[in-house]
């Protein structure tokens, strides 16, 4: 038989690097499931108990691999069940593509069995891209856009495929003429670096700080060495938001552990006492656990400009990849002058901790030596 739209969907997803789809079957995606059954592209279908969990697994897949997570559900109830897990991915800024069935084109608009308005349903959670593939020649670019936008925006996108389209003959290569789209697969994650004057300004602020607090979130997960280097150079402490707990190991002596309602006393003390706050890749929501406005000079780094300057009145907000921004501020050998500090520096004493005794050495390090950053960041 000719290759169907569903066969092409799997092939195209495979080219996008997808190897696993979390989903639950239903009448609205029978065409796609049939393609899985004859799939030669090595995409595994993982059967869950409930579509909410399929979306959560797709979210977790994205979190644990850095790749796009994919979940699949039938029209109507299956689609509705996805929502909570999709919001989880959206709000934690990880890429997930949801593939959802819909009533056949010939039945749409007739209050058909399991027909709900999927655009309205997904228009908030998948606001960057939710689209029907209503014609086989449209399928390729709808897939390509859903995956590329999910990656580029680190968000949730949704592809809706009516069941009769799923079973139609595929159009792998739309004709080169008017009213077609010629889409591609390529996507490369950019490395974003702020301008040199902004990095110099950041270095100045950090150098002028006497009690530097660093707060990391999951956005700093590829910048462990750089964050530690910043703490080393400034004599600062590192507190961690929930999603950033594995960014820096707790065995590093100047890591004070989690912050917030679920946090530690040392993290609280660091924020209460700091005169400079550096936030890297975090949207930690509870401002009352950060310094009082005006207490500290603040710098924030995030890959997403929308997330900057909303938790603390930072004076410098940098859009950039955390590791690139931080590494540009590393101290070059021989450049920085050493300064001597008293042992009563920024780091709180271990006696303030409420942690179990086994971790009591974690914030006990008040080092006497402090280096500065080169302000001629190059």
């Amino acid at each position, binding site marked *: 038989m000719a290759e169907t739209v569903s066969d092409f969907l799997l092939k195209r997803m495979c080219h996008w690097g997808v190897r*696993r789809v*979390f989903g639950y079957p239903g009448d609205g995606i029978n065409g796609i499931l049939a393609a899985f059954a004859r799939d030669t592209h090595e995409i595994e279908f*993982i*059967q*869950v*108990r*409930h579509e*909410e*969990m399929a979306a*959560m*697994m*797709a*979210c*977790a*897949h994205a*979190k*644990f*691999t850095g790749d796009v*997570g994919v979940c699949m559900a039938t029209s109507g109830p299956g689609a509705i069940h996805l929502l*909570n*897990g999709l*919001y*989880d991915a959206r*709000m*934690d800024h990880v890429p997930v593509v949801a593939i959802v069935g819909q009533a056949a084109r010939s039945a749409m608009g007739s209050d058909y069995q399991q027909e709900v308005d999927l655009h309205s349903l997904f228009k908030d959670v998948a606001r960057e891209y939710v689209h029907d593939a209503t014609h086989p020649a449209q399928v390729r670019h709808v897939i390509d856009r859903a995956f590329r936008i999910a990656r580029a925006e680190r968000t949730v996108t949704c592809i809706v495929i009516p069941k009769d389209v799923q079973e139609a003959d595929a159009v792998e290569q739309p004709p080169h003429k008017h009213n077609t789209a010629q889409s591609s697969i390529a996507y490369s994650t950019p490395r974003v670096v702020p301008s040199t004057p902004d990095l110099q300004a950041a270095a100045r602020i950090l150098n002028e700080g006497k009690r530097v607090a660093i707060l990391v979130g*999951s956005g700093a997960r590829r910048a462990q060495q750089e964050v530690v280097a910043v703490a080393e150079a400034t004599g600062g402490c590192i507190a961690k*938001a*929930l*999603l950033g*707990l*594995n960014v*820096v*190991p*707790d*065995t590093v002596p100047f890591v004070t*552990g*989690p912050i*917030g*309602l*679920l*946090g*530690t*006393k040392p*993290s*609280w003390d660091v924020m209460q006492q700091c005169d400079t706050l550096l936030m890297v890749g975090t*949207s930690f*929501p509870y401002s009352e656990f950060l310094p009082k406005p005006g207490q500290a000079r603040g710098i924030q780094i995030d890959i997403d400009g929308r997330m900057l300057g909303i938790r603390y009145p930072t004076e410098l907000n940098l859009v950039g990849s955390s590791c690139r921004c931080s590494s540009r501020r590393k101290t070059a050998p021989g450049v920085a002058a050493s300064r001597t500090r008293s042992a009563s520096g920024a780091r709180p004493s271990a006696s303030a901790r*409420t*942690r*179990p005794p*086994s*971790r009591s050495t974690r914030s006990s390090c008040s080092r006497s030596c402090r280096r500065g950053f080169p302000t001629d960041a190059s």
Partner: protein
Amino acid sequence: MTSDSGSSANWFARNLVFREGMLSSISGNLATMGCGVPYAIAAKFAHPGRAVIALVGDGAMQMNGMAELVTIAKYWKKWHDRRFVVCVLNNRDLNQVTWEMRAMAGSAKFEASQDLPDVRFSHFAEMLDLHGIFVNAPEKVGPAWDEALRSDRPVVYEAYVDPDVPPLPPHITLEQARAFTSSVLEGDPDRRGFIRQSIEQLFPGVTKKS
């Protein structure tokens, strides 16, 4: 490591020492209940050679986790590395909100909304041909972990724990202390337990702030 939302996230955040190379996640900004077990399943598929541990409360297990144990039952025989432990903190209470109501609102525990049926999750695991371990004494905790991580199949490690340990913030403001005190005075059904338990946790912060 994965954790669900609720008081389990407190112990996950405060008591787990993250070592180099560990991966972890949690539902951060949405903080939805019911994510711990599905996250762990996705983690196992993504990293089949690593041990996966989910820390989940009994409320989240009853909501989503028990159903997804069936998914684990469906797939675990295909895993060459079968180290997979769902650690259920069974305290028969929707504990995070119970404590939030006490500490923030000064409300006594509302049993109609907060009490949970005592479900034997370790038995449920055995029904699914997984391994269940019931841990109800401190001296069993360590040996049970040894047993769980040596098991030839996924494990439900059911820790039968005390709901009267306050999972409270690292600092306590006077306002919260006042609210807490009023919930005690108003006659919280569990007040004896939590006064006996960990009231010490509260007052260093109170005295410091005041």
